Each structure stands twice: as structure tokens, then as C-alpha cells.
């Protein structure tokens, strides 16, 4: 999309309560500039498609749009894109990703920061809970790292937790791997969540950030399920690493199934709420994601992946007590008391062993619970 149209289209998308469906109806009415003019003058409203999309509160909405549109500066919005280094794509542009061209609900407007060439097949989406365990974090990071180094594009949502871990894994590979694709729910100039600011900019720099929301759009709850549909649309496989029984990543699963995209889930302990959703998916027939090798096989990619062990571990000498404690921790998170009872070590000795393992970074403590890392 070029010139003045960018500003007008952005202005339309920035109107209050405009989501993908209403935006599509608006753009169907004609050239963006012309439609925007009609919104401003109020010469709008009887078109059948629009009537249906606006529903009962049509009159109020149109009045509100008119009010907001008059305060907007489409030209300024166009310049803003230039200043921020953001491009706006629509289906007419050659760079518009092919994956969306065949999609049942494609984004009519797609804002892009970074190199759109990063969006390519084969692609795997890695999604999961924001509040994840160390286990989920480590699995997501390893998958991200190994898939990227095998040349597979990793798509994720840049949320906290699993999403961030997956992309952090991709960035571990640096130059050598496929660049990351981040699909976000806010405007590309609105970093959300703030804690991911560093990752956000790295992904934009090394790969590409996509958003269906115009610059300036804040983190409204309805934008995230819509964003999940884009993640599903871009992926050949969706891997859910951790999810609670009703986690947001299950929206992505629904969208993936609607598009016949393969869904895989990472198994977790049956007593951990953080894996309840993924274990349910497995029970419902999703294939387990046990390692990168199987994902690559399913994608038909032949690549040399280190046999599932992650980074090569250097043998470290450990005294028998440390080995014992690490063995107990393989079953999940364990309290200090339980460690003491199961290892039979004295409290002082156990304090020393855990302090040493923590200092080495092999074990971490979260509240009263000890977990193994990596």
C-alpha cells in the first residue's frame, strides 16, 4: 500500500471498536481515502455489509466514528509509518505473505516491522502459558533454538513465558538460523508486555514483527485471540508447550484445527496445573511433541540436529549427594523438607548441596520449591 492510502487506512483501523471484521467491511466500501471522507461527513451507514457488522449500536458507533475521525490527521499517520520504519501491507502488495492469501480470515491490513522475507515456510508456531514453569521455559527455548538452526521459521506471540522463551531460543542461534517471526496484538510501536522490550526489538531487528493492529493500538483483551489466529495461519505445525486447562494458547489450537494445521503438545506431569491443558490435548488425540527431530520429520525437513540432548553437556564431577538430589529433582518441583526426607541428608548437608547446585545454576529455587534447570 502506498502514499496517502496508508494514512487513511490506518485512520480507519484506529477508529474505536474496529476489529478485523468491521475493518474488512469498511475497506470493502471503496478506496480508503474515500471511505474515510464518508466517515467524517456521516455519509455512511446504509450499506448492507456494514449494517450487519455494526449491529444494534450502529447509530452510536457511527456518531462516535465521525467524532473521532474529524480529530484524526491521516497525513500525519502516514508520516508516522515512515518515522517508525513500519510498513503497511494489503493483499494487493507482492510482499503480503502467501500464507494469508489462502486464509479464510486473512488480515486486510498487516503492519510490518523488519524484513517481511522472514515469513516463509516451513514454519512452526511455539505457544504456551505466560506463567510457565522452568521445565516449560527450557523446552520452549530448546525447541526454538533447534528449529531455527534447522532453518525452520519459529512463529510466536512475544507474550511472557513460553512465547518469550521460544524466541529467546531462536535468538541464541544468531546469524546461522532462520529469523524469528513475532505476531503481536498491539500496535507495533506499543511494546507489550513492557518486560519483553529487549526481546521485542531483537526480533524486529533479526526477523520480523507483524501486527493486525494499527500503530498506537493498546493491549485490548480482544486483540489477542485475533492475533492467535494469525499465528495459526502462518504455521505448518503449532506446538503447545504448557497450558492450563483454559489457557489462552488453546485459542491458537482452535484456529489451527480450523485451518487443518497440525497441533502438537508437550507432555507434562499429570499433577501440574500448568500442563493440564497440554495433557488434555494429548488425550484428545494431538500428537506429542517429544523433540525437534519428530517436528522436522513431520515438516519433511532434513537437517542435522544434535540428538535431542540440547547443548553438549560437559561432564562435571559431582559428589554422590549432589547426584542424589539431582535425581530426586528430575520428578518435578520438590520442597526442602521433601528433599531432606527423600535424600536422607542432614539439613546442614542438604543446605550446602542445594546452595552449591543453585550457585552452579543447575537448580533453581522458586519460593520453597526446588527445580532442576535445563
Amino acid at each position, binding site marked *: 500500500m502506498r502514499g496517502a492510502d496508508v494514512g487513511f487506512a490506518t485512520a480507519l483501523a484506529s477508529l474505536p471498536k474496529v476489529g478485523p471484521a468491521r475493518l474488512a467491511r469498511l475497506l470493502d466500501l471503496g478506496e480508503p481515502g474515500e471511505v474515510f471522507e464518508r466517515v467524517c461527513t456521516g455519509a455512511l451507514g446504509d450499506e448492507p455489509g456494514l449494517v450487519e457488522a455494526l449491529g444494534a449500536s450502529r447509530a452510536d458507533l457511527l456518531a462516535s466514528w465521525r467524532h473521532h475521525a474529524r480529530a484524526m490527521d491521516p497525513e500525519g499517520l502516514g508520516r508516522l509509518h515512515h518515522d517508525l520504519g513500519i510498513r503497511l501491507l494489503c493483499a494487493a502488495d507482492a510482499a503480503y505473505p502467501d500464507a494469508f492469501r489462502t486464509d479464510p480470515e486473512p488480515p486486510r491490513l498487516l503492519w510490518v516491522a523488519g524484513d517481511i522475507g522472514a515469513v516463509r515456510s516451513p514454519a512452526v508456531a511455539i505457544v504456551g502459558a505466560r506463567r510457565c514453569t522452568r521445565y516449560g521455559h527450557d523446552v520452549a527455548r530448546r525447541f526454538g533454538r533447534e528449529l531455527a538452526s534447522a532453518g525452520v521459521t519459529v512463529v510466536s506471540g512475544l507474550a511472557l513465558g513460553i512465547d518469550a522463551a521460544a524466541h529467546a531460543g531462536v535468538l541464541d542461534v544468531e546469524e546461522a538460523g532462520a529469523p524469528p517471526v513475532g505476531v503481536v496484538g498491539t500496535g507495533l510501536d506499543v511494546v507489550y508486555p513492557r518486560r519483553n522490550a529487549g526481546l521485542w526489538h531483537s526480533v524486529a531487528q533479526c526477523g520480523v514483527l507483524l501486527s493486525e493492529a494499527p500503530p498506537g493500538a493498546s493491549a485490548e483483551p480482544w486483540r489477542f485471540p485475533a492475533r492467535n489466529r494469525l499465528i495459526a495461519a502462518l504455521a505448518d505445525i503449532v506446538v503447545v508447550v504448557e497450558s492450563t486447562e483454559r489457557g489462552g494458547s488453546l485459542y491458537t489450537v482452535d484456529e489451527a484445527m480450523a485451518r487443518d494445521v497440525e497441533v502438537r503438545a508437550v507432555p507434562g506431569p499429570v499433577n501440574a496445573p500448568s*500442563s493440564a491443558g497440554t495433557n488434555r490435548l494429548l488425550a484428545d488425540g494431538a500428537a506429542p511433541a517429544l523433540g525437534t527431530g519428530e517436528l522436522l520429520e513431520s515438516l519433511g525437513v532434513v537437517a542435522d540436529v544434535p540428538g535431542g540432548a540440547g547443548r553438549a553437556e560437559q561432564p562435571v564431577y559431582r559428589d554422590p549427594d549432589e547426584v542424589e538430589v539431582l535425581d530426586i529433582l528430575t520428578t518435578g518441583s520438590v520442597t526442602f523438607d521433601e528433599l531432606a526426607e527423600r535424600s536422607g541428608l542432614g539439613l546442614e548437608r542438604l543446605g550446602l548441596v542445594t546452595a552449591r547446585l543453585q550457585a552452579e545454576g543447575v537448580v533453581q529455587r522458586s519460593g520453597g520449591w526446588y527445580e532442576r534447570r535445563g
Partner: protein
Amino acid sequence: MVVDASADDGEARLVVFTTISSATVLGVEGQPVTVEAHVSSGLPGFSIVGLPDTACREARDRVRAALLSSGCQWPQKRVTVNLAPSGVRKVGSGLDLAIALALLVADDQLGVECLDGLAAVGELGLDGTVRGVPGIVPAVDAITADELVVARDVAHLVGLVTDAKVRAVATLHEAVAALAGEDPWPPLPPRPDPDPPTRVPDLADVRGQHAARRALEIAAAGGHHLLMVGPPGAGKTMLARRLPGLLPRLDPAQSLAVTKIHSAAGLSLPSDRLSADPPFRDPHHSTTMVALIGGGAPTLRPGEVSCATHGVLFLDELGEFPPHVLDALRQPLEQGSIRISRAAASVVLPAHFLLVAAMNPCPCGEANRPGYCRCSDRERARYRRRLSGPLLDRFDLRIDVTRPDTNRLLGGEPGASTATVAARVAAARARAAGRGVRCNAELADARLEAATPLDAGATALLDTALRVGSLTARGLTRVRRLALTIADLAGTEAPLTAEHVGMALALRSEPLTRSEAA
């Protein structure tokens, strides 16, 4: 009594003036008061001067009714009562009895000689009964007298703290009759049955919770403040209630101090002895600043922090206390006392307590367990912000308490009993006494380094912990202090080993920090 018959104008003018000792309370200390009564001819009237508060001013009505009910006369003259020193505010009703006796002598209903060396503390009822008052222990402690008239029901308690001969009376009439020589002083009431020894719950009742039990032991031995973080039902309160049993019994000076504070605060006291049990105070989180810190009108009454002196102050649901109330704890935690200044007066209240606090890790209580918490980041952050960093810093021991496994609750071996652990604590405190302090928490930072040499393994462990950031420079001092107590408990001599330091690290988590997974 002074009889001044001046005949300047040819008419005899009788001036009668008497004094008797009594005392009132400010903060936790008694203030000696001399009650002066002056009866002169003139229009009948009664006034009390010398900064009485409302309760004290109302003595006029109580004394009048009590005199009349006891078969005495109310002087039909001009009566002035002065409470000296007149610059100090007098509070409460404890001066009633002294006022009544002074008045009777001034009015010549009693002989003047009977007030020699006499002091009286007690409130009068309208029917002439004599009652004890809150704060009677510090009040009588401040009085020097040969004989002390008090209410019968507090006679034994008073006898524990005063050198004077205690005269116990049930009514004003008994006192008047004895002073007039009509009857002998009533005998002291029979010694009350010894109160059943206060039962401190035993540590052996706690199953599992090895780390928490060890933390209690270390807290008792080293005087380290303890913060327990854990979900509801993990047994935090149960553990805290067992801490006073581990502390050493109070010595006589501490017993007296605690009894005075509790008396001034109006708490119930054992009637037959000075309690040597370390106090345990657990104010609810709706407690106001004044009730916690002290300074309640009118006596600048001691608050919960003072009542917990030489014992344990337990704050359950620490996160629910208003932040400004918690921050007010910082001065007493640092100095062992608190200065209360009001327009009328300024007092220093003792506040030397062991602080034990318990809280949930987040509103839902599950935050500690990876993958189980349902609270949003914002909720957890808001909960964390309720504790200021400086307050959090005061806790040497910060442990996470988890719900014990039900199997262990039913089948577990009982742990060491309170008596066993208390003996270890006493031994550790004896070692600390060798350094010239009661417990290691009192050891000055400057002396800590010299007192805690580290062996090679301990140095290496601390080095790594500092390098990877699991320990901060500020935390290092605290860990050394803790490790010293751990070594004292184990009975080992310097230097500290890696195991002492490792145990200290395990008992000092960074509570309420979110697990940084991303």
C-alpha cells in the same frame, strides 16, 4: 497537720494541711505523687489541682460517695487537693484512696500521725470498696513507703514488687478503722492457688516441616527475626506459637520489667508470681498504629511491641497490615525501644522483641509453587509492594513454608520436643554470651567479621553465590550472622564451614520475588 491560729484580725482561722504518698503511671514507669489536702473554713467546695485528667478529676464524686457510704463525714468546708508535682499529668483513678485518706486526716476525722510513712494506691467505688487499677505494678514500684494500702485482690501481686508492708483492704471502712486503731489491719488474703503453669504448645506436635523447625531453633538461639511465607494451612501460626517455649526463661529483672509493662497495658497477670514465661503477642492485622506501637491516651499506654518485650511479637498475615503501621516497626526493631512523644509528655517504652511474621506469597496463596498460582502479575506485584524493602531487610531468616504431605502428617516421626530444642538453644546462647552479647543478633556488624572466620569451602560457596547473584553484599553479613548461630547450635568452634553457610543460605530465601522464567 499544721494548725495555724493567727489572731491578726481577732478571729481564729483554722488551716489544716496533710500529705500522703501515692503514684500514677506514664508509659510503663510509675510517677510518685504526693497528695496534699487542705481544709479551710469558707464556702463549702472541693477542687483538685495539679494536672488531673478526667478520670482523676472525677475522684471528687467517687471519694465523696465512698466517704459517706463508709460512715465518715463529708467536710462542710473549703477543700483543696493538690497532686504534686503539679507539672506532671496525673491519670486514672488510682489516687482515689490516697485522696480520701488525706481528706479524712485534714478534716480531723483521723489522727495526723497515722499517715506517717503511709502510701495508698487504689480506686474507690461508690459503696467504699477499694479496687486495683491498671498499672498498679509500675505505680507501687515507684513508691517508697513503710506501709502501703492497696486493694485486697492485688495484694499478693503488689507484695512481689514492693519492699513496703502491704496492707490489704477490701473497703475504705476497713482502712479507716485500722488507721484509727479501732480494728487491726485485716489479714492478707490467703495465697491464691498457684495458677496452673502456662502450657506452651510442644514442638513435638509439628510433623514434617524440618526446615521450619530448624529456623525456629535458630531464631530462638540467635534472636534472628523470622519471616514465614507460605500458603494457608501450611502451619505458620502453629510454628510461631511454639517459639516462646524455645526461648530462655526470663531472669528476675526481665520478669519484673515484663510484669510492669503488662500491668501498665492493663493485661491480666498471674496473681501469685512474676511470670518467667517469655510473652507471646499476636495482634490482629486490623490493629491500629497506636495499639501496636504505644502511646494510647491518657497514660501513653504501651502497645503490643512493648508487651512483647523479652518475648515474641507474631504478626500473622503481614501483608494485610497497613504499610504505615509496619514501617513504624523499624525504630523498635533497630533500637529495642520506642520513643513516644505527645504534647503532654514524652516517654521511652521498651520494645525488645523477637519478630516473627507470616504471610501468604500472593492473594491466592500458591505463588511459590511453579505453575500453580492463579494471580495476575499485577496482583502479585501489589501484594509484594506492601512490604517495604527496609522492613524485609530486618528478617535474617526468611523461609518458605509449604503444606506438608498428608502421609507425613499421619505417619511421620515426631520431631525433637520443646525441652530438647530449648536445651540446645540455651547452650548456643551460652556461647554467644562468651562474646559479650545475649544473642548473635546483638553482635555489632563491626565485630561480626572477626567472630566469623570462614574456612576454604565456606569462602568458595559464598564467592560463587555472590558471583551468580543469588546473594547480595548486604545479604552476606546476614548470612554470616546466621551461619554463626548455626555453628553455635551445632557446638562447633570457628571457622565456619561450608555446611553452616549452606544451611544459612537455604533458610534465607528471597521471598515474594517472582520466578523469572522469561
